[in-house]
Structure formats: C-alpha cells, structure tokens
C-alpha cells in the first residue's frame, strides 16, 4: 500500500519535458510511481489541476545560524523550497573551535547582516566539528539541507588566527585537505570561498589569504569526493570576472569538479558585463569546464538605517563609523552641525564600487519605529527640496526624531531591466540562485525569488515555458551540486514535492516581521499560489494550515565522484 497519492495534477517532473495530467505515488518518503498510479493509498490528495513539481532547490543561502532556531528555514519552505544550501561565500558555522566563535560570529554577522542580539540569543554553540554541527541541526530540520563548508573556517581550524594574515605551509595545506575530506564525508556537498569578502575589521576573510596552490589542493580533494566549489568573484568588473571564470575553468577541468559563482547581475553601471561573462563561460564550457553563474530573479533592493552598520554604507567611511558608535556618542555626533556637514559632504561623493548606481535622493522612508503618515513612503530628495536642506540632513533628522528606528529604502537599484533579464534568465548557462536567504535580514527580503521567476518571467515576459522554469529550480541545481536522487519526479527519488497554481504563484510584498529569537524585526515575503509542500513524503506546509509540525528534513546525500 502506498502512503500517499497526489492525483489529478499537472505533472511537471523537473526534466523540462512537457507537463501532463497525472498522479504521483509515494511510499516511505520516496516517489514510487509517476503518471498513472495504481494501488491503494493511506491518503489521497486531489491536486485539482495544480502543478505537481519537484520541490525547489535554493543553492545560495546563509541559513547556517537560523537553522539552529528554525529548522524549517522560514519563509523559504512556504515558497516551495525543499532543499537549501547554506555555507556560501567562505562562511559556514563549522568546523569552528570554541575560541574562534566570537571572531567568526562577528565576521558572519557583518557580511551577512545578521543582528547581534538575534545571533547571540538564537545560537547555542554545541559543536566544533562539521559533523557535530549537522548533528545539532539535524533533529529539528523541516527542510533538506545540502551544506557547503566554508574555506575560511577550514583555514581557521588548521592555522588558528594566522589564517587571517598569511599563506599556509605545505603541511597546513595537507591538514586542510584532510579536514575538508572529513567535512565532505560528514555531509558537505562542497566548499565555498571568496575572492571579495572583508571581515568585521575590514580585513580580507581568511579564504582570501590562500595562495593558488592551496585552493588547487582543496579542489583536488573536492574532485576525489565529488564536491562542488562555490566562489564569490569580483562580479562588478568584466575583466576581473572573466579572469575568475578562467581560474574556475582551469580548476574544473583539472580536478573534474563543478564550480559555481555568485552573484551575476545586470546593472546600468555596467550594462555589457553579463553578456561578456556569458561569452567567456560559453567558450570555457566548450572546452570542458563546468562553471555555473548564479543569477537572482528579483531586482536589487537595499535599505539602511542609522541604528547599525549596513552594507549600504560600506564605502562611506564616515557613515559606517557613525553607525558603529555607542548610542550616546552617535546621537551627539548626529546633532553636531560640523559633523553633519561632513557626513553630507561624504554623501555627495558617494560611489558604490560594485556595479550599482545609488542616488540617496531616491531613498524613501520605508519603515519607522513610530510611523508618521506624513513621512512614510516619501522620497528623501523631495523632502530635502521642501525643507531646503541637504538629503543627509533629512535622513539624520528623521532618524533622530524616530529614535534611530527609521529604515530608508532604495528599491530596484540594479538588475531591474526586466526585458533584458528575461533573456538572461532563459540562457541555458545561467543558473537561478544568489538569493541569499537567511542573510541581510534587516536590509531587504531575500525570499520569493522562485515565485517571482514564474510571475515575472514565465507569465509576464514569456521568457521560458513553465517546464523550463521548474527544471532550472530543481533538476539543474541537483545535477550541478551533485544531490543524489533529488530534483526530479522519478521513482526512487526523494518525495520532495510542491503543488502550485501556475496562474498565481508569486512572491508577496516585502513585510517586516518580529520572529527573530531576540527583539527586532526582519524583512520577509510571504508566498502566494503555493498550495502544499512535501519534504521527503510528508506535508511540511499548506496554504490552508500553514507550517506543519513535521520535521522530516534531511542532510542530503551527494552523488559520489
């Protein structure tokens, strides 16, 4: 007898093949039949014509910390995501010795913009090894996890704090290889690195101190074990990005590994960049390399407030330093006419060196501690014109009057030419990813890219058929990341399934919710058009009942090399 049959659906199996009317039979967490399904079942669900698809796979998240207090990785699960990859950008939370927790935590919070109080309240460090981290989160998982191990963590474990300042010896490189192998054996699907990120003290993250021979040696280990390499390249400059694509290609060919980088996005600041990068990837792919760029579906939004350091201020040293000050000193500075003038001057010469064009005059009042209807939604540039002052003074005055709780939004500042992006997303070389779920939680909502792919680019721009969009979110990811028996509706595969309405699936509006393990908020988006989500054969979410109590998520298995 089957455990469950989902019948009367539009089966979109993840392969890209045309969808068809049919059913899916499930037993013991696995798919046992697809199409015409015979036999009795303990439970029968009528899909009512909705799409039955493999659960979506999100390859770029930073849920490492959130998984400790929320094993369902909300709200990703309700968007149809049944497998997530945490540990990107050289940063995981294991393996990590106890004495490095404070340092790594500060780096993680700075790069991924996680409030310290939530991080501290939600994390109970019970692990050091990678295996123990997985054991710590495992029982609470309501979503599948395909973790990456961060190169920075591997360096820290082997070299201690020297990892932040010097190259490794040959002996240390051999120790790193052994540690990486241990992490891969424990369940990691690969290793992440970065050529870009800077830590909480504005120093390069440890991974960036690696000489090429170190990365090469670690990729040899990935090749032996069948792991993937994820990297963050200099994504804003075509020449630098092409150089990194070449380096990844060489590593891919030499060690027989898949490589991926993120992000890749379009911007008016560098409108030809994506095309140049794709031409390079096409050339390298023709020569046997596997390099998959990850592109987000949503436009780039940022926000900022004066309460805490945020990436928006990364190239405004005076503003950054101001946000770091203790509260009383910060308030004094913001009221000092001379200091205000200096901040205004700095904003006038603002330059965002990562391929984005930002005009702070376009910032708007997005959220307030005590909402003022006369200000909510108003553009800073318009308010400055009305008040006859500099935009910096508007920002400061509003923030001061609101006890520094005001959040200012900058929407669609890049990756916002929808017609152009529609063509990019449809390119077979482009992977859907770079969503950043679990990160930047008080800056912008990193969720709902899956729904947005369907609403904006399948329905809106007809950039690709439904079946292709599903394939890009499922089988394509599972194949590149080497996830065993995930990403397709096939007998023997894990029963990770999403039922959705192709006419209404979407991301909802960005909202602030207070569900962190400490006082404070985060931005999320609710899903629409998702009817049910199953994780390993058990319903984990439904539109009518919300999140289920079931904890059937697993650490995924890797295809062996």
């Amino acid at each position, binding site marked *: 007898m089957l455990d469950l049959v989902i019948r009367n659906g539009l089966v979109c199996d993840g392969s890209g093949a045309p969808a068809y009317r049919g059913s899916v039979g499930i037993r013991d967490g696995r798919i046992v039949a697809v199409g015409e399904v015979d036999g009795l079942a303990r439970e029968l669900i009528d899909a009512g014509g909705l799409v039955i698809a493999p659960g979506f796979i999100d390859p770029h998240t930073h849920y490492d910390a959130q998984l400790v207090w929320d094993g369902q990785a909300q709200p990703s699960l309700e968007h149809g995501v049944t497998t997530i990859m945490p540990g990107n950008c050289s940063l995981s939370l294991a393996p990590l010795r106890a004495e490095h927790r404070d340092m790594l935590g500060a780096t993680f919070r700075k790069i991924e913009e996680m409030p310290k109080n939530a991080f501290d309240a939600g994390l109970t460090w019970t692990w050091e090894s990678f295996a123990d981290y997985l054991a710590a989160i495992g029982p609470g998982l309501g979503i599948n996890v395909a973790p990456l191990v961060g190169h920075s963590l591997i360096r820290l474990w082997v070299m201690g704090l020297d990892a932040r300042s*010097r*190259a490794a010896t040959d002996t240390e490189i051999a120790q790193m290889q052994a540690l990486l192998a241990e992490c891969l054996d424990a369940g990691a699907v690969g290793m992440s690195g970065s*050529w870009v990120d*800077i830590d909480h003290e*504005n*120093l*390069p993250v440890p*991974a*960036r*101190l*690696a*000489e*090429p021979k170190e*990365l090469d040696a670690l990729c040899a280990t990935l090749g032996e074990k069948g792991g993937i390499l994820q990297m963050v390249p*200099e994504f804003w*400059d*075509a*020449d*630098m990005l*092409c*150089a*990194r694509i*070449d*380096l990844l*290609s*060489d590593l891919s*060919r*030499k060690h027989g590994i898949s490589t991926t980088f993120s992000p890749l996005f379009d911007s008016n600041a560098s409108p030809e960049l994506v095309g*140049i990068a794709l031409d*390079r990837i096409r*050339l*390298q792919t023709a*020569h*046997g*390399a596997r390099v998959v760029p990850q592109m987000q579906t949503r436009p780039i939004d940022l926000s900022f407030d004066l309460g805490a350091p945020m990436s928006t201020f*990364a*190239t405004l*040293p005076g503003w950054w330093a101001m946000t770091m000050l203790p509260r009383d000193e910060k308030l004094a500075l913001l009221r000092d006419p001379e200091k205000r003038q200096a901040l205004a001057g700095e904003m006038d010469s603002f330059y965002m*060196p990562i391929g984005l064009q930002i005009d702070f005059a376009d910032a708007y009042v997005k959220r307030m501690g005590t909402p003022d209807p006369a200000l909510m939604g108003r553009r800073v540039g318009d308010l400055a014109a009305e008040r006859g002052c500099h935009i910096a003074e508007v920002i400061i005055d509003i923030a001061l009057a609101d006890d520094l709780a005001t959040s200012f939004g900058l929407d669609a500042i890049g990756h916002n030419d929808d017609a152009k992006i529609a063509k990019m997303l449809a390119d077979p070389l482009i992977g859907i990813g770079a969503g950043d779920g679990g990160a930047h939680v008080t800056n912008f909502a990193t969720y709902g890219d899956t729904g947005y792919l369907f609403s904006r680019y399948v329905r809106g721009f007809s950039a690709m058929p439904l079946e292709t969009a599903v394939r890009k979110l499922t089988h394509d990811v599972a194949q590149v990341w080497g996830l065993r028996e995930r990403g397709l509706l096939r007998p023997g595969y894990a029963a990770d399934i999403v039922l959705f309405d192709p006419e209404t699936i979407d991301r909802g509006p960005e909202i602030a919710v207070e569900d962190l393990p400490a006082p404070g908020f985060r931005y999320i988006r609710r899903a629409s058009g998702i009817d049910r989500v199953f994780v390993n054969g058990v319903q984990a979410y439904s539109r009518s009942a919300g999140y289920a109590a079931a904890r059937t998520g697993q650490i995924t298995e890797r295809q062996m090399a």
Partner: protein
Amino acid sequence: MSTALPPRRRFIQPESGDDWPRIAARVMPDVPVEAAIEQLKSWNLFLVFRPVSVITPSDILFIEPPAAPAGQAAGT
C-alpha cells in the same frame, strides 16, 4: 586537463609577501620600478582603493591595460 585559452586581459596572481615594488620588478623588469608601479596601479585601481590596502595571494593583478571597446581603434 588544462586548456590554455588566451585570457581576455593578461593577469598574474601575486606571490605571498608581494608588494608593489616586488611585483613591478618581476613583471616589468625593463621599466624603472617607480614607473612600473604607477603603471601597474593604474591598471589595478581596485587594489589601490581598497578600504585596507593589502594585496593578497588570491588577488588577480592585471599586467596590461584594458582592451579598447569593440570597434574602437587604439589611440582614438
């Protein structure tokens, strides 16, 4: 297997402990060091204008200027 495709723009990766004088002496041995440093810096402004000006061994460092945009002859 490695495939030597010509790069879009020639670059090197620094050796551990490299600084501008050492790199300049190595990659532009026929040019006076100060002039070579200035030349290299002009081709690698991203390294020059970092918040903390350090060169790491994982960096890429261009050893020639950017190519002219397609359809634009040199010197125009």
